[in-house]
């Protein structure tokens, strides 16, 4: 994977970037694709009857097609552009949720969810008088499958969980969980923010109903993401936001809506970003998700061993072979914020805090953690620099 690093112009600055679970870096091909839109055929889509508008529409819809292929959707019409995973989940909570969730219905989530897969459901549940139950984790930071099965016997209306934990790195057994949830009659949403970039996803094989992910966590731009939904479900759902480009016909008496995906894409879309994400997905597919995952597991194993050797460290989550490229840890006596500040002085970028998983922090009995996370461009040398920085922190706080 050596040559890959040169595809990412930011690394000429010399930083060690270990915060890819937060946001990734972008390769030149993505930046070029966005720049080409702005400099060569910048026009709005779906309306202008002139050449560059048609070209913009073609590239924009081409990106949708590419995303559909990436997750093996039946049709590009099942791909809805959003600003990211958060908006994708909110769309489902507001549109499908308010049309379907009723008083005393059960929603099942897990304690390892990111706030974006917790808060929209808490708001919905409070509004509808629905209940929420959370699947716990075991000592290794993996989902309690017996607890999950027990909750399925209560016939939940919705089951939502993450493909990969952004704090623990745990890879959840999606196939097994979806099968159990569907058998119980539930609609299933999967948060793919940490899964799609590293493992990919096959929506048809998964059996899920909704899949949400973000562009900026997979070498694409910020401000763009995807909600995939089963065509029949999308057809039955009311619009989430209303305005231009999502209608069939508007009169002063009322409006009929366009079909999905346009029904959920009110207003001018993030055209350059969608095209950029299309380019990112093409780039990742060219390298191969299996190769990316293997590279990350190699790095994760190396990082976990090196960290253990440091001493006085607590590493959260499962063994390297059972996780994605995420390692959260706590160095005895030094707050993660202080670690991050000292590491910054070594030009090493990590995340420090609760990672938007406060309930998980509480479950783990910590206020915050330090997190190093990897991607296809990460090198072992960067992990060595992390170790050097951590040794320096130990010296300062000794």
């Amino acid at each position, binding site marked *: 994977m050596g040559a890959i690093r040169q595809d990412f112009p930011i690394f000429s600055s010399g930083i060690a970037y270990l915060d890819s679970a937060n946001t990734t870096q972008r390769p030149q091909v993505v930046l070029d694709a966005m720049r080409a839109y702005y400099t060569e055929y910048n026009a709005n889509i779906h309306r202008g009857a002139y050449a560059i508008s048609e070209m913009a529409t073609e590239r924009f819809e081409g990106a949708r097609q590419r995303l559909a292929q990436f997750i093996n959707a039946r049709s590009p019409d099942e791909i809805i552009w959003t600003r990211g995973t958060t908006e994708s989940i909110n769309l489902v909570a507001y549109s499908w949720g308010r049309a379907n969730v009723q008083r005393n219905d059960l929603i099942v989530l897990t304690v390892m969810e990111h706030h974006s897969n917790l808060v929209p459901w808490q708001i919905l549940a409070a509004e509808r008088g629905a209940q929420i139950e959370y699947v716990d984790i075991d000592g290794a930071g993996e989902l309690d499958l017996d607890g999950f099965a027990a909750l399925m016997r209560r016939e939940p209306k919705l089951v939502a969980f993450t493909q990969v934990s952004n704090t623990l790195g745990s890879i959840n057994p999606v196939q097994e969980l979806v099968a159990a949830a569907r058998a119980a009659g539930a609609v299933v949403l999967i948060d793919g923010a940490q899964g799609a970039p590293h493992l990919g996803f096959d929506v048809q094989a998964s059996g899920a109903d909704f899949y949400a992910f973000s562009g900026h966590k997979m070498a694409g731009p910020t401000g763009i993401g995807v909600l995939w939904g089963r065509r029949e479900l999308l057809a039955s759902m009311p619009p989430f936001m209303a305005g231009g480009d999502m209608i069939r016909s508007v009169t002063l008496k009322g409006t009929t809506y366009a079909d999905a995906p346009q029904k959920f894409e009110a207003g001018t879309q993030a055209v350059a970003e969608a095209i950029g994400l299309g380019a990112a997905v093409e780039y990742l597919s060219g390298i191969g998700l299996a190769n990316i995952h293997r590279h990350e597991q190699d790095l994760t194993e190396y990082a976990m061993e090196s960290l253990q050797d440091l001493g006085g460290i607590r590493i959260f989550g499962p063994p390297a072979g059972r996780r994605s490229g995420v390692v959260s840890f706590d160095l005895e006596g030094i*707050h993660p914020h*202080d670690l991050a500040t000292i590491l910054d002085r070594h030009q090493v970028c990590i995340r420090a805090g609760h990672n938007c998983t406060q309930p998980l922090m509480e479950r783990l009995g910590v206020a915050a953690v330090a997190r190093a996370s990897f991607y296809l461009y990460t090198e072992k040398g960067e992990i060595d620099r992390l170790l050097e920085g951590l040794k320096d922190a130990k010296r300062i706080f000794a």
Partner: protein
Amino acid sequence: MMDDQFYREYILDHYKNPRNFGHLDHADIAHEEVNPLCGDVIGMEFAVKQGVIEDVRFYGRGCAISQASASLLTERLKGMTLEEARKLGKDDVVEQLGIEISAARLKCALLSLKVLKVGAYGLADVD
């Protein structure tokens, strides 16, 4: 090795041996705040007599910057009139820490001031 301009000895000392740490037997005023960015918590308790802060304690958990900042602040508050304490601001706290602090870490440094302002004096948020 980096220089230790940020984590100076006195800051580490206040972090490891915080002054006025714990609880008062009887507090006239008590308040705590959470930094939503990191979940760090600081609480403060005051014993006030005739407009003068006779005693103060702080408790909580957090990074070296938030803990040292709180510890330094309590040292300064003891014996101050409420009037004087009300006038303390962001610049006083930063100056007292004596280090160059980034925007990202400013929230850590100012958490204890926020506790003082919001809790004890009902003033608006400091940030």
